[in-house]
């Protein structure tokens, strides 16, 4: 999933200071799962913003709504009937959702309420960790299902480096060395020989180095 974290409330208040009526739009997908921008977080932020405005003697009308997915135009369209009630939109979706709302509603300012972080997995309740960088050419088949791009601090294709100590990365004693994990996994699978194969330099054009990316699926487009 795409993970996100709430922005400081002060920052959001600064964005909406000139307005009196806003739509606060959550998203029912990834940001709901990582508790950053679902229905409940919409309620909490709405309360906090209204109280902050009241404290400075002003009223803030907040229309709370949580869309099924803010990254799909079909669902963003649900904002159209209520858009005239608001001077601005505060989106609690990831950056994709914020941009989709901005694209659809050209004359209404849209502000993000969360910082979008990474594509990750849930390690345990309340803890998420980065797992994929969307490099565009997956190498998990040869690394035992553990991604050296997302999980090695140096993105080494042939690791580990000298900074690996007792299975941990030198950047942080809580960060696993991805190449230690890969080696352990290959050993468990009986595929130690695979470790001897040198991986060639990666073609990063499939990643962000090739500019903004698109997918066109011919049978659907």
């Amino acid at each position: 999933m795409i993970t996100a974290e709430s922005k400081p409330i002060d920052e959001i208040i600064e964005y909406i200071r000139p307005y009196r009526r806003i739509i606060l739009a959550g998203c029912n997908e990834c940001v709901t799962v990582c508790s950053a921008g679902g229905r409940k977080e919409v309620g909490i932020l709405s309360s906090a913003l209204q109280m902050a405005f009241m404290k400075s003697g002003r009223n803030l009308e907040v229309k709370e709504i949580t869309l099924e997915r803010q990254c799909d135009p079909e669902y963003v369209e649900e904002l159209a009937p209520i858009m005239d009630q608001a001077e601005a939109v505060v989106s609690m979706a990831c950056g994709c959702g914020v941009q989709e709302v901005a694209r659809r509603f050209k004359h209404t300012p849209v502000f993000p309420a969360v910082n979008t972080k990474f594509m990750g997995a849930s390690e345990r309740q309340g803890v998420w960790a980065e797992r994929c960088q969307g490099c565009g050419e997956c190498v998990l088949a040869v690394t035992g299902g553990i991604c050296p791009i997302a999980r090695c601090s140096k993105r080494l294709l042939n690791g580990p480096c000298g900074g690996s100590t007792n299975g941990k990365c030198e950047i942080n004693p809580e960060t696993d060395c991805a190449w230690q994990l890969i080696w352990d996994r290959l050993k468990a699978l009986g595929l130690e020989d695979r470790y001897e194969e040198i991986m060639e330099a990666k073609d990063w054009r499939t990643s962000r180095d090739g500019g903004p990316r698109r997918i066109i699926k011919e049978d659907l487009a």
Partner: protein
Amino acid sequence: MEHFEPVIVAFCCHYCAYTAADMAGSMRLTYPPNVKIIRVPCTGKVDTLHILRALQKGADGVFVAGCLEGDCHFKTGNIRAARHVKQAQKVLDEIGIGGERVEMITMSAGMGGGFARTALEFTEKIRALGPNPIKNVVEKQVRAAAGS
């Protein structure tokens, strides 16, 4: 300020604090009538949102009263509640309402005296803090709604 009577909302667990409040009554103990009790099946169900909404609607203080650590009927509901209270305190500090208006308290069902004492101490603490800074605006809104 002279006649400030704080409004306190107390989310009380059915298995401990609510029963303790009941016991305080049976024991003929007095505690301030400022405390408005909301019975919940477990404090684990009390979310940050419920605490904030209570303050947004004009409460001056909120306490969540759950079971003693290790005694939760649903194992960890009270621990979960303590985290929600902490989150509410963080948000209230950020917006300048003050996190000290919210507190997590634990007690057993037999602590009738403990409940009465907690109610008194918390009420006095909020009285000393003064009214919720948004109270004037809330009251104005209520009056406007009643007049319309």
